């Protein structure tokens, strides 16, 4: 599944970068995240619950590794999730651009992800995967933006 998009944060890039590196913030922002802990310099482990069509609250054990980091511009996430109803494996590239706006700096995020999805979730959830993926991404980004606003 390929998900690409752009999102604008109402704040400076350095602050956005900070948020994206904070597991406590991410755990709150990412829908369905039950836990997310930092287990190494650039690696995280967590448990997520997702609902796709006929599969409700399917749990995935997720490993995320951050690579090719260029603070505060760019990083690549390697995601490896395994659960009772399938797996997801792939990468997401995140790029942050700061733009000076009249009201202050804003940060434009370009994201592109290519995830392989397999098992039952691919077999019976296929019709809904993309829309669920888009919806979850939007919820996460909106929540991050709200957190950013609260911190500024």
């Amino acid at each position, binding site marked *: 599944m390929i998900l690409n998009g752009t999102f604008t944060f109402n704040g400076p890039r350095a602050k956005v970068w900070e948020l994206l590196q904070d597991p406590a913030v991410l755990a709150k922002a990412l829908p369905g995240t039950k836990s997310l802990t930092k287990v190494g310099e650039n690696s995280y482990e967590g448990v997520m619950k997702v609902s796709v069509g006929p599969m409700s609250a399917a749990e995935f054990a997720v490993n995320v590794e951050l690579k090719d980091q260029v603070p505060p511009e760019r990083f690549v996430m390697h995601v490896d999730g395994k659960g*009772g109803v*399938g*797996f997801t494996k792939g990468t997401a590239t995140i790029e942050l651009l700061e733009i000076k706006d009249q009201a202050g700096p804003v940060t434009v995020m370009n994201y592109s992800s290519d995830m*392989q999805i*397999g098992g*039952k979730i*691919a077999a*019976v959830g296929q019709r809904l995967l993309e829309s669920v993926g888009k919806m979850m991404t939007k919820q996460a980004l909106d929540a991050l933006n709200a957190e950013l606003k609260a911190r500024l």
Partner: protein
Amino acid sequence: MPAGARYLNARVVRNEDARLLTGRALFVDDVQLPGMLHVAFVRSEYAHGRITSVDVSAARQRPGVAAVYTAEDLGAYLKPGPILVSPPPIPGLVFHPCTQLPLAKDKVRHVGEPIAMIVAESRYVAEDALRDVSVDIDPIDAIVDLEKGLAPGAPLIHEHLQSNAAAHVVQRKGDYAGVRGSADLIVRRRFLYDRGVSAAMENRAVAVQWNARAEELTIWDTTQAPIPIRNGLAQMLGLLESQVNVIAPFVGGGFGPKIMMFYPEELLLPWAAMRLNRSLKWTEDRQENFYATTQERGQVHDAEMALTKDGRILGVHDVFLFDTGAYDPYGLTIPINTQCTLLGPYDIPHYESEFTAVFTNKTIVTPVRGAGRQHGVFVSERLLDLAARELGVDRVEIRKRNLLGPDRFPVNHEIMFQDSAPLIYDSGDYLPTLEQAAEMIGYDAFVRDEQPKLRAAGRHVGIGVACYVEGTGIGPYEGARVTVEPSGKVRCATGVGTQGQGHFTVFAQLVADALGVDVEHVKVVTGDTREFHWGTGTFASRGAVVAGSACHAAAMAVREKILNLASAVLNVPKEQLELADGRVFVAVEPDRGLSLGELSAKANPLRGAVRPGTEPGLESTAYFGPDRGSTASGVHAMILEVDAETATVEIKRYLVVHDCGTIINPMLVEGQIHGGVAHGIGNAFYEQLVYDEQGQLLNASFMDYLIPTATDVPSIETAHRETPSPYNPMGLKGVGEAGCIPTGALFAQAVEDALAGSGVEITEIPLSPNRLFELIERAKEGRT
């Protein structure tokens, strides 16, 4: 058949329906045994990859789990499955046998391949334990597309081979290259035919009981071939054949994939039951069925037909790829069926057909109803339609010009059929069949009067007429034992399995006619190795032809015993005796006789001796094995309307005129045809397995995989013609697959005709409203 046969060609109501309709029929999942444990399988979520670890320790700890097995635990039992059908002896044939392990070790080659087996006190616990198993797989790029699979540098599915080619076969008749130059017209296209599932109503199931005291293993299995399964399992488990019973009770649809596959589940449950000394059961769920039960149909053809300007076929040249899936246990039956069936009822003097079977990271391919025949019919029928258009000849007329005449039989096609015998058509009468179909559907009047009016009114209504032949009733043999019991009732046991065809009725009809008893008094037993243990199974439209002929032969032998004994008892020459109403009596003096029950008691006396050369009882066993299959044929015709905006299709009329030789029961023949047409319609317009580039099946449920419902299947008109086969005593031919063989070709023809002038050309099956919409849009772009 003796004179006065009451039941041959009669609409006898099915003997088995009372049990089926009142829920008293036994299916494998109905088997409940004391202390029975339940099984679930951990299956690969990756289509292609290397297994780096399988950790089952947590599953073993779960309360209620009795055992967990991986490939490591199987020891010497971990062996690749057998090659089920050896390729025929075709010169130059290349075949690389690669069969599946019962549990994957080192590598997985398709989604759904079993990796571990969990045995637990209930299916619930077993399924929960599935999630305790941690499997690590290093993915390898999957082979999904046939041509990419053959490209140099493609990842190898079986690494000991040089490429992903599983087989290569060329068959020739005449000299196509030589005749091509003299053709007035060459039509050439690429044709695609994609995969589907058989979608039997009952999924697979296996239940096993190991009786340690008797040292006897009993297996209830949804198999079409209980005897080969018993023999194979006995050998693999180190038991005598007589220690193993395989029972295929009522089975809710076979359609091919339930044949003697030696599926991993079939092999593992008996092995584990013996180890654990417990009864076990596994029933496949619908999603497993989409991955773990074999499938059919992916083929890509590059074909051309050479014709004279008056529409006579000079020859056909076809090169095709065949998707065999991850392994090839069933050999080359399907592509050879395709190769042979392409010739159809036509006189094609020059033919060259070459195919390459390709391994892919998809579920294993084995025959599904039609078994490759529909692909061949699709190619030849479509080429004829295209040629008719190019030459300005009517579609029915071009077929008439090319049909083999009745004086041509037997027709030797000089190529090898799937049963390792030369492809010979035994008999047929094709022209009257085609004429009858065209007349029934009102072809001439429709094309001349009705269609122009409909078109003028802006409606897209098309007509199609497609011909086919079907090789049926192949050997090697089947057998039957017929016994008259002292009650006067008759028992007939045969080895083939039954999956709803009506064996309990047709075999009973044959026996009843031979013995002069009521058909309800013949109790047929099928698919139980305790009852009869010689034979092969139900496949290739052969049940009625081969097992039916054996039942007939056994009953005729019993008839002879009845006549001999009655002649002695009544002191009347046997030529003067008659059998009717369950009695044997003197023809001119009907009161002088006795019931078959009484005679049966006399044949098994409590005092006195069995004289040399005689046997006790009124019982006989007989076998029948034809030298080669008999060729059924037929013509399907349909009228359909396409909604050009939504690309949905409404079938207005569908009819089948077919010839399956002597008919035992017209009602059951019609039932077979109706079911086949429903399958064919699904194949033509609804069903398609969709894989992503990594070999993930994206529509593994009936939410997304469409099968036709009752509202999508029209009422089907049928007409019977009977050209008896000379290859068996009653002139029978098979009919199990006739309904679905030309359906794709017919659908394509009728849709194209409905959209005539739009530039839409149909060279692929399955269609769907979506796909047809794309083709209509593409044709519009092409025109602008």
